[in-house]
């Protein structure tokens, strides 16, 4: 009689929280985005307080003052002008609890533009670079304020595709973005301006919010950002991040030999290919192909039914491990073997 032999997975269950990291990640993205909206208002409020200006404010400014006073009361206590300085700026460059941080792309662009090494500025990128060496493109998945908008855009796109309104996106060459990075560096040198600051979505998002709140309104950056959203909708899924973003290119290069990687436990995998479908960057977890593009967003971990994906500390991906041991291919093989009367 044919018996259904199935190997029990001998690898341990991955840590239970890792299934929920994707939710945590979305919350982090939301937090960063909300902070980017709040910070300019906090700065405004601090300036109003420092200027003892409440009686001189317009009704609109007075509303900002009141709301911010209410929001920041627990942190600001009695001295908002000095107690609210812990976070300033945006993801391109800013201060986090007294530590100045900058995007490595800002440093690359600025060095290319002015051909001078200004050490205090170079050092601000030290921590991001170090983290990227360990974690790869984590900035793209976990911090970048544009990613939140791109993911919302992607969800809309997914529904439109299912309704048949939009076509499936096309695949392009992932190496295009390294070209964009190289051309950007070259143009920065040639023109003497940091051209990335005009086309880098996370900076555009942060800065346009700030322009909207504290300066002279949104500008060309918004138009550019909307165009990238259109590109994602009409041309390729998450196309800007995957094919064109110069920051993504830099982070991918830095994270080529990152230490923290998602890996497939072939013993637990059942070949359902959900991870391949859900990956926003169209990587192939089923083929153990993460490469330097993976930004550890853990979307694949969240959907994997047999919990076959886990984090490992390695500097390279495993070579393709073949079909999962819980999958139909293995099941068929097991059935064939038992039909011959041998022990599977």
């Amino acid at each position: 009689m044919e018996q259904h032999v199935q190997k029990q997975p001998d690898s341990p269950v991955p840590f239970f929280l890792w299934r929920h990291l994707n939710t945590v990640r979305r919350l982090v993205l939301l937090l960063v985005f909300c902070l980017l909206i709040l910070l300019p208002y906090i700065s405004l409020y601090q300036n109003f307080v420092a200027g003892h200006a409440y009686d001189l404010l317009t009704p609109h400014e007075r509303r900002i003052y009141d709301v911010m006073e209410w929001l920041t009361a627990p942190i600001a206590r009695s001295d908002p002008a000095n107690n609210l300085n812990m976070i300033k700026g945006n993801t391109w460059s800013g201060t986090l609890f007294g530590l100045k941080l900058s995007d490595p792309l800002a440093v690359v662009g600025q060095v290319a533009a002015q051909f001078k090494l200004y050490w205090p500025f170079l050092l601000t990128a030290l921590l991001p670079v170090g983290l990227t060496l360990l974690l790869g493109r984590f900035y793209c998945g976990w911090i970048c304020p544009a990613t939140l908008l791109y993911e919302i855009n992607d969800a809309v796109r997914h529904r439109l595709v299912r309704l048949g309104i939009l076509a499936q996106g096309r695949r392009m060459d992932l190496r295009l973005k390294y070209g964009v990075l190289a051309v950007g560096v070259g143009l920065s040198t040639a023109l003497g301006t940091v051209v990335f600051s005009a086309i880098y979505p996370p900076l555009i998002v942060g800065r346009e919010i700030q322009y909207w709140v504290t300066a002279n309104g949104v500008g060309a950056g918004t138009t550019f950002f909307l165009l990238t959203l259109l590109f994602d909708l009409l041309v390729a899924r998450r196309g800007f991040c995957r094919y064109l973003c110069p920051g993504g290119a830099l982070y991918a290069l830095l994270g080529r030999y990152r230490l923290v990687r998602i890996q497939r436990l072939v013993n637990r995998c059942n070949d359902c290919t959900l991870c391949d479908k859900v990956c926003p960057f169209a990587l192939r977890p089923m083929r153990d192909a993460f490469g330097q593009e993976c930004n550890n967003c853990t979307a694949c971990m969240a959907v994997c039914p047999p919990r076959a994906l886990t984090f490992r500390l390695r500097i390279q991906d495993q070579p393709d491990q073949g079909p999962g041991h819980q999958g139909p291919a293995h099941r068929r093989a097991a059935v064939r073997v038992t039909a011959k009367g041998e022990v599977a």
Partner: protein
Amino acid sequence: MERRTFLQQLTATAALVAGAATPYGLARVMTPEALAAPHTHLRPPGALRDDNAFIEACIGCGLCGEVCPVQAIRFYGREGGNKVNTPYINPAKKGCILSGRCMEVCPTNALTATPKREVAMGIAQIDRSACYPWVDRGVCGACANVCPVGKEAITFVFANFYRPVVLKGCVGCGVCVEVCPHPSRPIRIAERSLVQYAPAAIIPESALPPAVNPSAGVTGHGVPAQPEAGETPRPGVVPF
């Protein structure tokens, strides 16, 4: 790669590049006069003297504008050409109060920490054919009262009662331009290198260079300066 795929990708990339050019490049091509416009605004205090060096050093993070206590710092849009996203101060709208916050937060060497009195944004010049005390239309002194530097920058000379004169200590912050009650804004900020000044001496009329800030530099005769696009005209100030 197949030719078909390659052509498709080429088309997509070309479309994106063209799209990217729309907010930046094409707008500049279509409005060439914007490129030819002279340097009309001041850089924030502590900015590198050479404007090209400043543009090279500035990464366009916008921190200086965020922390500016009076929101004097604005940013060039695409009309600024290669100055896009770099900060400027338009003293006709809002002058710098020399709080030094922007210099503190600037991550690069674009704005370097400079003591208040060594800031060199420019130097103020007073149009004596418009300034109320200079044309004997009253007593004012708003500029001298508000100057964040003080008596070394702008003062009244003896026997010229309430007639302000700019001295060597002026750093060009532009607060006087902002507060001047005359509708034609008779004070303008000129480039420092162009001005021949003597310490504690009145700058002769003949030494006045062309205005750096045309919107503030209209000479006298009660002609109101044109407000910037989007700027609400100031409430009328009654001369006294």
